[in-house]
């Protein structure tokens, strides 16, 4: 279990990807916070960008963890990332100090603690003894929290507890507050959970193999992030203004189209052959 089976030279170092994901995601989430100050919701789409950058980082963390020989556990890694991340995220939303300005920072710290506990348990109690287990689970838990926070900000325009459990509907000209049709009351958070949980594990799960290439996997991670943004943007039409939701939707479509196109180009670069309706190409030795 502790033998590293996949070694690849070159590529971007993991710490650089970590820094890009963590800082980029936090900046994106904080830009959505400007919504509260400016009294608008047009910046909601930055939540989706934040989630995409977090997934970009998380996919490489999964690659790092899975290279220790837990190939079949790749989809479960996505689930544990979001399972621990959702706790850190919801815990942090309760800190309404200064209108919730500290929420993203507290979410990162809380998720790191939960990830560390899970990692230590996996290594000591389950005796998995994987060197990067603790650091990888800390990272994935933070990725889960940041992705959920970003997608929640995309859907509702904010990431504070009040914004997640209440929504305002207009009824015969009166503004009413309801809980049933909020992000958490309507369980839209369950959709966001799985959108992120599948998106974080897909890039490595789809690209694993002896001819794995880092740039191709990372491009797929960005594609998965923008793809997750598309349905989240559609759902956001029920929560935020038409203009804000339309901006999110257009950004998601443009970003997805570009990254999908680039990913196909990279797959074409790496494939042994690129054939259309050709017979099975038996290897020279034959069987």
């Amino acid at each position, binding site marked *: 279990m502790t033998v590293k089976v996949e070694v690849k030279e070159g590529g971007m170092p993991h710490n650089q990807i970590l820094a890009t994901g963590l800082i980029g995601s936090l900046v994106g989430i904080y830009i959505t916070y400007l919504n509260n100050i400016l009294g608008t919701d047009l910046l909601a789409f930055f939540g989706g960008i934040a989630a995409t950058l977090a997934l970009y980082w998380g996919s490489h963390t999964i690659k790092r963890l899975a290279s220790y020989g837990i190939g*079949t556990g790749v*989809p479960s890694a*996505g*689930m544990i990332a979001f399972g621990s991340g959702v706790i850190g995220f919801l815990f942090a939303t309760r800190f309404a100090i200064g209108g919730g300005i500290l929420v993203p920072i507290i979410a990162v710290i809380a998720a790191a603690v939960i990830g560390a506990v899970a990692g230590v348990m996996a290594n000591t109690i389950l005796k998995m003894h994987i060197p990067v287990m603790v650091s990888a689970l800390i990272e994935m838990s933070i990725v889960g929290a940041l992705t959920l926070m970003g997608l929640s900000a995309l859907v509702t325009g904010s990431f504070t507890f009040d914004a997640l459990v209440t929504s305002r509907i207009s009824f015969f000209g009166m503004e009413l507050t309801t809980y*049933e*049709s909020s992000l958490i*009351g*309507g*369980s*839209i958070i*369950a*959709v966001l959970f*799985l*959108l992120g*949980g*599948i998106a974080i*594990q*897909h*890039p490595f*799960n*789809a*690209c*694993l*193999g*002896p*001819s*794995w*290439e880092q740039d191709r*996997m990372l491009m*797929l991670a960005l*594609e*998965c992030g923008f*793809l997750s943004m*598309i*349905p989240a943007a*559609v*759902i956001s*039409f*029920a929560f935020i203004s038409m203009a804000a939701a339309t901006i999110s939707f257009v950004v998601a479509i443009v970003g997805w189209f570009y990254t*999908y196109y680039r*990913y*196909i180009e*990279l*797959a*074409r670069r*790496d*494939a*042994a*052959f*690129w*054939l*259309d*309706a*050709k017979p*099975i*190409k038996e*290897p020279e*030795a*034959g*069987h």
Partner: protein
Amino acid sequence: MVDQIVFGIGITALAGALATVAGAAEDTESDIGSQGDPNSQVQLAPQMGYIHRIFNKAIAGEPPAYGLWVALGAGVAWALMAMQVNAVLAIILGSALAVFVQGIYATTAYLGRIASLAKFGQPVYIDIIKSMTTVTMAHAFVAVFTTVTVCYLINVALGHPFPLPLLGLVWGIALGAAGSATGNPFYGKERQYQSQKFGAGVPIAASGNIVRYAEAGERNSLDNGWFSSKLGGPASGVCFGLIVFFELWRTVIFEEIANGWGAVIVGILVILIFAVIDRYIEIWARKTYGPYGKPEEAA
């Protein structure tokens, strides 16, 4: 009271029928995409020298993948209904968007896996993506649409307290689990390994030696879909249909008894009866068809 129970039984029957269609479509979809457990063998085949033309779609295990498609369909439908869109239209649009996401995941999974097998000379067959992705998307649409409709019936007609997206998550995972557990054996062990004896498993020496040539020409995953839609799909359909039917039936009829404990006890009884039936069928099948009735002879 009686009217309510008769109404509940009607909804239960309708939900069971929809679930049967969902299970059949789900299993056929995942078999065409090679998403179930035989995928590891499809993935392994080129490394063992068996180049193939079978769709290699690894998104996740079927339960989490279908958890996402159905929750997504239900979530988008929920949001559209919150915007006063007609329920039928909302469910159709939600399912269509979920299937769009599923189709994109399918193509990126195929391209990624095959490109990473370049070392073994496995080509990317573009015609496989073109012809098979659309077929899996069509089957996925049937599965997602019917399951979201079941969730809508449970929520609105039977008054279940969970919101639609959460029901979508729960029943999507149940759908994926039913298809994975019931349907895949037909495809995985019987279709993909026709050179192996029934019940023999896959010995190490035969790893990756999947069946790559069909009765006429080269096999692709549409042939697998044709095969598994005959037995594996309907079996998964009956499985998921029975799960939904018994789940709702015991609640509608027996919930009034003993403060809800009636429904729990009937549920346990149903599980026990099915466990006995399953065990009987397993022993009968092994005795009738299995190669290892007397394992000591093999040694």
